[in-house]
């Protein structure tokens, strides 16, 4: 396969201004990432700053409910509350190596914006976070955190004021400052080499899962379940298992309110291949090729595209795609709260829905790892409002 291509997906569909910068980024990643020095810095930060390795927790009560043995990979315990810091730290170190002084990024749920601000401060880099006006409103607590850390939050009010629009604006901004500024892409999306870089930094999740499950159970899991849109936490968990053909991999996307037009983020279910933000992806679009806005209550899944690698893995049948509706997601939050005393992020709750909805398919000896990608503090108000209103 050509570099940066995953079957028909991927590529570098950006304007000429950015191409030389992407080539430089790829070269920098290939040069620095494998060195002992870089690894030492990264692993040091992951361990002492982020709090890795994260535990693999046997969720006994939840297991009972769904009728199989479920382990939660506790990415909610990464400092900042989600897996996002794994990638942010890696790219911040890379930014330093490239001699750039600033990082820009976009965020929806605020988790990646927060992780970027943290990583920027640790590495002595200025940060600017683009965020859709609608997301600024619904993720107010994360916005406060990002600002407290000293990052500049730039509201994006074009389009619907959500993640898709924030990515477009960050790309535009990047074309004006790419020589001094790194765009810290938060998910496995965008033009090559981003999907590769982000998946590499996130695959620390899957590497740990492999070691931990072998230690605890003496065998690999039967199934790994993860939520996603761009695919960073899912690919992070899946990557070390892609060649383990007996391990079933399940990806759960945002179903939104319903699968009808304009009410969903389920690009695998109702999208098709198209080009957005620099790559061929599975994407929500109309018959003319105009990109359609996605909809889900989980801001972090509210993106119309699936990253190139996860698109390819689903298309080729290696990964099974599923979706969860908003209503089920809120119920799943409750289930996790009551069984294990954990408040999951709305995004993470999508993976929980899959387990609950498919419990008949599991037998008691089945070993499942659920990538518990983030904690739900940021969603508290949304969750309370939902239960109050309904």
């Amino acid at each position: 396969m050509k570099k940066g291509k995953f079957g028909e997906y991927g590529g570098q569909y950006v304007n000429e201004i950015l191409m030389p910068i992407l080539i430089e980024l790829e070269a920098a990643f290939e040069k620095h990432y494998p060195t002992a020095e870089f690894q030492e810095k990264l692993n040091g930060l992951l361990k002492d700053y982020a709090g890795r390795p994260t535990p693999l927790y046997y969720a006994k009560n939840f297991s009972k409910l769904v009728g199989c043995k479920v382990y939660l990979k506790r990415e909610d315990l990464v400092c900042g509350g989600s897996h996002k810091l794994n990638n942010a730290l890696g790219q911040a170190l890379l930014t330093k190596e490239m001699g750039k002084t600033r990082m820009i990024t976009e965020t929806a749920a605020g988790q990646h914006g927060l992780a970027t601000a943290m990583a920027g401060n640790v590495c002595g880099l200025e940060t600017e976070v683009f965020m859709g006006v609608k997301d600024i409103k619904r993720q107010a607590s994360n916005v406060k955190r990002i600002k407290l850390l000293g990052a500049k939050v730039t509201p994006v009010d074009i389009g619907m004021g959500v993640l898709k629009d924030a990515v477009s604006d960050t790309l535009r901004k990047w074309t004006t400052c790419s020589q001094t500024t790194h765009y810290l892409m938060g998910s496995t999306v965008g033009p090559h080499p981003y999907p590769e870089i982000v998946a590499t930094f996130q695959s620390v999740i899957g590497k740990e899962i492999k070691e931990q499950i072998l230690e605890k159970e003496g065998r690999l899991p039967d199934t790994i379940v993860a939520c996603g849109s761009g695919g960073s936490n899912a690919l992070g968990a899946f990557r070390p298992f892609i060649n383990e053909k007996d391990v079933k991999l399940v990806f759960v996307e945002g179903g939104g309110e319903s699968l009808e037009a304009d009410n969903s983020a389920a690009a695998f279910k109702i999208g098709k291949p198209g080009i957005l933000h620099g790559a061929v992806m599975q994407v929500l679009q109309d018959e003319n090729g105009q990109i359609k806005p996605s909809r889900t209550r989980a801001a972090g899944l509210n993106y119309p595209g699936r990253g190139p690698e996860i698109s390819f893995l689903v298309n080729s049948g290696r990964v099974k795609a599923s979706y969860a509706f908003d209503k089920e997601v809120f119920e799943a939050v409750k289930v996790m709260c009551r069984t294990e005393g954990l408040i999951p992020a709305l995004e993470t709750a999508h993976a929980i829905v899959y387990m609950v909805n498919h419990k008949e398919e599991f037998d008691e000896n089945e070993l499942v790892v659920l990538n518990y990608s983030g904690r739900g503090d940021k969603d508290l108000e949304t969750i309370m409002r939902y239960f109050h209103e309904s």
Partner: protein
Amino acid sequence: MNLEDKFKELQKKGEGAHMPHVYYGDPHEEFSLRLIETLVENGADILEFGIPFSDPTADGPTFQAVCERALENGMTPTRCIEGIKKVRERGIENPIVVTTYYNIPYVTGVGNFLNKIKEAGAQAIIVPNVPVEEADELLAEGKKSGIHPIFQIAPTTTEDRLKKIVDIASGFLYVIGVEGVTGVRESLGDSTLKLVKRVRKHTDMPLLAGFGISTRKQASAVVAAGADGAIAGSAYARVYEKNLEKPEETLPEIARLVGQIKQGCIEGYGQRR
């Protein structure tokens, strides 16, 4: 008229070319047609005919709003292609260069799309999010259908890439003088002038400079520096967007502006050494 003949004609007259960029369908189709007529009657040599896209990442705020309005008002790629036919039916013979983002041709099939615009009367296509690395299909299909894929060169383009781009390009080269997106800027940086001079060392192909050009002076400066013409787009949208209820009332102002920018292209040509 094809691009080659147009550039030859202008060379003979000793003029730089002016290519205004219009996104079709903003705020509605009839206005776009009258806008195009006004531009052509008052100084445009080549027409850049934009097909609106939902996520125009190489465009600044003015053209983003333009695309959003056109799409809200129901503009589609099919209606745009019909629009090219209408331009031809109105007797406009200037070369037409279609601009759109790659998803639009991608979903209907690149070859199919190029055939359709060719049939409608276009000569070339600009797809800002297709760099040389991803251009194989566009080049192959362009050759088959007789549509020139136009490539861009930016201040960040390395010498190595510059050679690659010059090798595959046809029609003309689009020189982006500033790092950024389309839109009006107060002053044109020296980078445009530097870049035009750099590209000139590699090719005799016509060069049109774009991004950030909105005045006679700027047009004159890039042509004097060796470009064969100047592109302006947002500058025109900025005039009619002030009166979206009755945009046709702004046509006299647009006529004056396009005349001035064309005048700049002529003056600049005279100052070339």
